[in-house]
């Protein structure tokens, strides 16, 4: 290659040019080496782990609010009992986890050999936002022997009061996920129907059994969460 064809020679033709361009190239090499050192040595662990997913342990601490209500229900009547949790309770907890109901009654007619009445209860999926379709729910029951009936409704989806280990996202993401006061807001409706079972002496004019007293206990289980990174 002749001199005229070789541009490199023209670039480095004088000592001054050589010095200037050499300083420039050495500076570029120094920058590249600096970058390589930081990338492969100083920050290597951080860079390698930048896409590692962080795991978190999510713990729940439960607190319950209980309210009791009794209602006298006539034979053949379907009564609706309602339950609403105040906003201040939502404000002081992360979420409304579950709702437990116990429905109890006894034969109160006082008549001789009067059998227990038949009571059926049904927690209807209206009024409040909850995980109504959760397979673990127990939303209706019937009793003819004065046995206490229990119903369960999972209000906050996926809540089960066991410490969970999750992977991915950030700590705040999980706190946000488990802090939602929309679940459980509104009014729960419990329909109670009483069918009176007459005593054998019912033919006697002074003997009658035409109502029953039903006692319903609403236990609203709220939870507070603790999200801790797992190392």
């Amino acid at each position, binding site marked *: 290659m002749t001199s005229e064809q070789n541009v490199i020679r*023209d670039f480095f033709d004088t000592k001054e040019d050589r010095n200037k*361009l050499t300083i420039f190239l050495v500076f570029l090499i120094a920058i590249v080496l600096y*970058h390589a050192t930081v*990338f*492969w040595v100083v920050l290597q662990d951080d860079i390698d782990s930048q896409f590692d997913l962080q795991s978190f342990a999510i713990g729940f601490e439960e607190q319950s609010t209980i309210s009791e209500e009794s209602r006298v229900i006539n034979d053949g009547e379907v009564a609706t009992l309602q339950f609403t949790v105040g906003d201040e309770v939502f404000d002081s907890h992360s979420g409304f986890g579950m709702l437990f109901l116990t429905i109890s009654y006894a034969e109160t007619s006082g008549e001789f050999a009067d059998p227990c009445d038949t009571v059926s209860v049904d927690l209807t999926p209206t009024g409040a936002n909850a995980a109504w379709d959760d397979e673990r729910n127990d939303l209706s029951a019937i009793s003819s022997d004065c046995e206490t009936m229990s119903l369960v409704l999972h209000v906050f989806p996926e809540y089960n009061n066991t410490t969970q280990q999750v992977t991915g996202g950030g700590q705040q993401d999980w706190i946000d996920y488990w802090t939602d006061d929309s679940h459980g807001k509104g009014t729960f409706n419990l329909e109670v129907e009483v069918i009176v079972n007459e005593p054998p002496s019912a033919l006697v004019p002074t003997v009658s059994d035409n109502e029953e007293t039903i006692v319903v206990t609403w236990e609203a289980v709220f939870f507070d969460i603790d999200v801790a990174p797992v190392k």
Partner: protein
Amino acid sequence: MDDTNLLFIGAILSVALGGMALRLVRANKKLDWNEAIAAHILCLMFITKGIQNAATAYFNQALESSETHWQFWVSISMSMDYIFTGSAIAIALLYPVPLLRTIKQVKVGLSLIGGFTMFCLILDVVGLNLTAFGLPGLLYYAVAIIWGGVYVKFRLIDPEKRNDSTRNVALVSGLFMTLILGHVWMWWPGLILQSNYFYFFDLGGGALTSTLWDFMWLSGYAIGIGAGLTMLGIEIYLALSGDGNKLLYVLLPYFVLGLIGYSIYSKGDDAGFIIDTSSSEIIDLWSVFTTSLHFTVIRPIIAMYILLKFGLFDIDEETKPMAKLMSIILIVVATSALLELLQSILPINQMISAALLGIIIALGLGWEEKSFHRLVTDPADMRIGLDKKWFPELDIPRKYISRIDFACMIYCIIAVLVAFLIWKMDIIIELATTRMGGAE
């Protein structure tokens, strides 16, 4: 206005200006061989960059749906980036000073670049895209070393040999480097201060690109910043010595914005311009107003300035209307985009912003009239007073140079077919599944 809208504006601007500029360049018979090739490639570079901007914007939109056609757009975007890389390297080898000095060197040089571009496209098809085989960061290495070397050589030439031509050669080199590397310069403190936002930069996102790929790409950024800091230092030194150049006013904002950007980016977890949906609003805004604006608006402005100022258009009575139309499009689209961006963050009434837009455009057109006249009547020369050895005479007929346009068109058609293939064969999804261990 979000990043996606800005990409569409950039696409319109680049394709429109690139297309019209190509027509003017083809009509200019006065260009020397290296100028003609460089001007052709520069115009094609902007047309394809416009296509890439549009493809990236469509990719962003497609990600919001559950369908897989985003692979088509991402493939188009990548293949257009290959041609951008090849174009920039080819221009650097030919303009402002041709480093390829013989027909043989030109043939070999351009063939290697064309071959490399096709090689990258083949890597996409065979599922080896975003691997070290594609030499990520090559563009930045080439630009920093070639244009950086030309800049240093001519800007620091002996004072007795220094003249307007040497300053212009340095200016063009500096402007081209700004065009390619401007967005990188805005992260210079991150490189020096070892910030996460620089070193955690991951263009592919997660395990789709290997650590080696990320390193090679970032290494290109590092050398680009090195070249930029060198130019800034030289310009400040020469300005203090009484030999200032307008390049200083171009470079300085990028490096000052880098300082401001350091304090903003350091507050978030995101790296570079890879902004995820959960990033804070301020980082998002900063990225749109700096990096995205550079990609979509500043790049066409710089290219337009080079084309007009350095005589790559032959402006006469016949071509003047189109050249003026290009300037007007640039001003109207750029100012309206900027105002829309401002309107998205400032509580300005739409009627007020419409009136403001009218005033700004009127002022801009007035300024355009004056500056356009100055640009075309006083083109900068790079040959007077320079040794002829820097500009060897080669006899390359224009019909051969015009074939570059045809070759580019063929490449684009192949790229569309490849993108279709990649989409239908789910190549990128399979790649992501393999590299990310099951996650798409």
